């Protein structure tokens, strides 16, 4: 089951790089949230109940429901299609595929040297690092601020996967602090995103060039 979820997660990454409709981004973010929920459930069954509930809440409520709905509300369904990506369509799919394959090869090659405990950590490692790199790629390849936000969330999902690969957990206090921080940063970014749209007619990072030497 874990394998199935990881493969689906990687497929969602590849699909993310191809997407043009902003609405599809929100759908994919919700899907990734649900996949992470499934992974967390199967991976962390053995930890204590409160901890498990907290992580399930984080993935299902925060990642799969709150964030996509919040972003949809922020954009008020006014932005339908993102634009200006220098690398378009199938080329970006190709690049994402290369990133995923590269991450798998590197993870597989070095897992002996790094003495990663189990083979399944290689899978987590591949998906996590791919997600971080694909997130960076999405952010760099697009000029729309909303895709920048999506890129950030994909990176965050990658980091969540990395922490799942770790298996054991940080103390509850630390986990809560981390979740609160990410929650607030998404909230504040959403608020600023709205203000940006008021100032700069469309939400294009190309217009953010007032500050220079």
């Amino acid at each position, binding site marked *: 089951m874990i394998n199935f979820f990881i493969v689906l997660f990687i497929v969602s990454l590849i699909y993310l790089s191809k997407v043009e409709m902003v609405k599809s981004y929100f759908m994919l973010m919700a899907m990734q949230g649900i996949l992470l929920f499934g992974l967390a459930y199967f991976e962390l069954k053995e930890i204590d109940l409160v901890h498990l509930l907290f992580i399930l809440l984080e993935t299902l409520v925060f990642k799969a429901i709150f964030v996509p709905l919040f972003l949809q509300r922020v954009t008020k369904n006014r932005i339908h299609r993102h634009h200006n990506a220098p690398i378009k369509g199938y080329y970006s799919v190709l690049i994402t595929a290369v990133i995923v394959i590269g991450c798998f090869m590197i993870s597989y090659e070095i897992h002996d040297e790094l*003495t990663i405990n189990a083979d399944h950590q290689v899978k987590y490692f591949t998906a996590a690092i791919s997600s971080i790199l694909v997130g960076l790629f999405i952010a760099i390849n697009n000029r729309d601020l909303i895709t920048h936000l999506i890129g950030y969330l994909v990176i*965050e999902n990658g*980091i969540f996967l*990395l*922490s799942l690969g770790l298996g054991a957990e940080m103390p509850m*206090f630390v986990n809560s602090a981390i979740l609160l921080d990410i929650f607030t940063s998404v909230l504040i*970014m959403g608020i600023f995103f709205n203000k940006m749209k008021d*100032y700069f007619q469309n939400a294009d990072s190309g217009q953010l060039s007032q*500050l220079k030497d």
Partner: protein
Amino acid sequence: MIYLFFILTAVLAILTYFIRQRVLSHVMVFLYVALMMVLAVHLWPQPGQSLNAYFYSDRLGLIFYFILILVSLLSAIHYMKFVVDRNVKVADVALHNAGTIFFTGAIVGVLFTSHFGILWAFMEATTLGASVLIYHNRNQDALEATWKYLYVCSIGIAIAFAGVLFLGFAAQQVGHIDFSFAAIKAEAGQLNTVWLKACFLLIVTGFSVKMGLVPLFNVDIDAKDASPSQVGASLSSVLMNAGFIAIYRFYEAFSGTSILPWMNKLLMIVGLLSLFFAAVYVLRVKNVKRMFAYSSMEHASLVMIAFSCGGLGYFAAILHLVMHSLVKSSLFFQVSQMHRIFNSKLDENIGSYLRVNPLGGLVMLLGFLSIIAMPPSGMLISELYMFQALVAKNYWWVALIVLLLVLIIIYGLAVKMLGIIFLKKNTASINMQGASPYESILQLILIIIVFYIGLFRPPFIVDTILVAIQSLPA
């Protein structure tokens, strides 16, 4: 006590946000500074002691904590004047003061935590607090700077968190995962060095945005430019110190392992690259605030280079940070006054400052002499120690490159600063009501402290820094 402090921080920040009365809002910030002083009195007698499972107070944290108290106090005083001059709306004052309390509280957490996870969480909290402060002016520049800062910092902090998780992978191989400094330091010798190197690389990359170093320095410069000057002062001093201490905690934990020379090389490369970019940009910059921001980047680079040498370099780095915090805050505070008088941040619109505002001009002149490390500035001493450390390590070529780049920066700063202080220019309008003697006197005191440290090297300060770095390899 420390938990009570954080609870009170949250309560004060929330209360301040809802206060719709300017004076009362300022009083809340002063109340918070007083609370910080109480905590300082509580922590000073017990250095190195664990306060609870997640916090401890060591000498380095306390040194930066005292600077935090001083800079916060002066920022609060300067902000009062700023509010009156700009006629800032009550709601904006409330948000700014609440943001200040939140931001300062987050830095206190960074300074005193003994857990890598908590360190990360407080670091992220500083980003959120700083965003509120940077957005203060509510104009297009502020919005652009805030968005960029928030976004790039969040990416940087996410990268740093990946570093913390890599440390977890390393720790997992030798048994249990405990992210406390003491546990990691005790086990560091058995940990896989590839994981440790990857962890340290990601930590330096992620927290570079806080220190204003390569690779994520750009947003830091924009933030210092677009925010009010007293915020720029905090970003250039206390936040830089927080960024340093975050990197320092990882460095200290791994310093007993075989990757020590590798970490030193990495810090030296980061320092040299940052110094190079600072030198390139400082020559072309026209905006005084950006110029000081690049100067901060130069000093952060020098700190990293000194630190990478080890031994005397450790001492030089921390002494340099202490003095830079005082001088740079003072200069940023003065820029606020200069901006009020000339209504411009561009060097071409500002001239004869010493004649127009003698006391403010004196602050600018002495501050300028300090940041270029001219005697009797204390920063000369720390830079000399840095070169001594480089030579002791036989890094002659590095010393020469650093010397060359520092000379370029001094030239770039001198051309603009001497023009601002002495040269008569066609300034459009001068508003002398912006001059504030009591503000300049406070700034002058900070610079005199740095001169005093340079001339007399008080044993109290020297001994405190030596105790702070005694856990590092000789």
